[in-house]
């Protein structure tokens, strides 16, 4: 049984963006030595996300636009208060809710050393509160 964990840093450059990380996940799987198993991808933040959809710009835009429609920045949120552990106010409830809605992880099978996924499926790191340097995890498990 092989278990390998990589912590990947990514510098986001906009307030919100969808970043295709499929090639990175495939690269980590390829280097892991795992022939048959599973790969799990997970963001380490609560105002970013991980999701899978068809890899085309119109859908990237639709996801961000409609998440913003569901959770408008200017809605009233209880989270808008002083957070003593941060020394600052939390006023980004909308970004947390987008993360909850879109999800924070995904998993794919590995077969013969390669990621098994649908031809249209693309893995995205979702930034909802950037720009920030972010970290996500790729864990590969198998034999």
């Amino acid at each position, binding site marked *: 049984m092989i278990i390998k964990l990589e912590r990947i840093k990514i510098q986001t450059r906009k307030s919100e963006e969808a970043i295709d990380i499929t090639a990175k996940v495939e690269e980590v799987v390829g280097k892991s030595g795992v022939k048959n198993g599973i790969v799990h991808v997970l963001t380490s933040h609560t105002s970013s996300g991980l999701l899978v959809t068809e890899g085309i710009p119109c859908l990237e835009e639709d996801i961000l636009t409609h998440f913003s429609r569901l959770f408008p920045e200017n809605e009233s949120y209880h989270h*808008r208060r*002083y*957070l003593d552990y*941060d020394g600052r106010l939390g*006023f980004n409830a909308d970004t947390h809710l987008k993360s909850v809605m879109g999800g924070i992880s995904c998993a794919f099978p590995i077969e013969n050393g390669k990621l098994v996924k649908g031809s249209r499926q693309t893995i995205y790191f979702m930034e909802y509160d950037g720009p*920030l*340097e972010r970290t996500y995890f790729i864990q590969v498990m198998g034999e």
Partner: protein
Amino acid sequence: MIDFHTHPVLIREFVEKYPNYERSARQVFNIGNNFQPLETFLLQMDVAGIERAVLLPIDCRRARKDGVSSNDQVAELCQMNSRFIGFASVDPLRKGAARELENAVKKMGLVGLKLDPALQNFEVGDKRAFAVYEAASALGIPVVIHTGMSWAPETPLEKGQPLLLEPAIRRWSKLNFVLAHYAWPWVWEATALALKYPNVYLDTSCLYYDSPREFFQSVFNKQIPTTVIERSLRNKVVFGSNYPRVEIKNMVHALKSLELTEGCLNKILKDNAKRLLGEL
């Protein structure tokens, strides 16, 4: 556009380079966010439409063991990127503070003074501080002074009362005082000082409850009428974010949500800062 109030306390590159940098951010300044590469600071400016940012250190080594950034660190950041405008901080109660300020301006290229009576634990009327005001006046640099409430620990509110500054404002009439955080909650007192004295400016870096947009509506629309800024203080208010306690973009959006004319916004976001920096 210029952000007149930022603190370079979460720069990742400084964590390993300066041993006390992390402790200062966590325990003295009191901020829990992750350290970020310098690039993030610049990108935060980009998404907010900010071209240049004033970097403010606080020399509170006597009062708090560590300072909140140092003059050397600020000068280093200014060397690394021309979008940064560096201010110096000196402790008015330490011997040689005036000379130290003069060196910071003349030798290190810093262009303003930052003071925080609460965090630095000094009285603004203490005669030992007069030499620093005198030096700043002679150097022709502005002083950004903390007024109002502070989120840093062990910072009594009473030291942030803006009226405590009136004697110094009157005595050093050539020295431009920028009252940080609009002196919240004493916004009427701060407004009165800015209305009365030509050498008093106010920065917008205040957020103490709700969201930036809600807070600005509460303070700059209900607590004082927006028309006071539009009509009477359009040349006396400068934009400040207080980043990284608040993201710069949120404060820009909050300011723009007020019913201010384009001409007034341009002054707050650019012209007034340039005048204070001697660029106009």
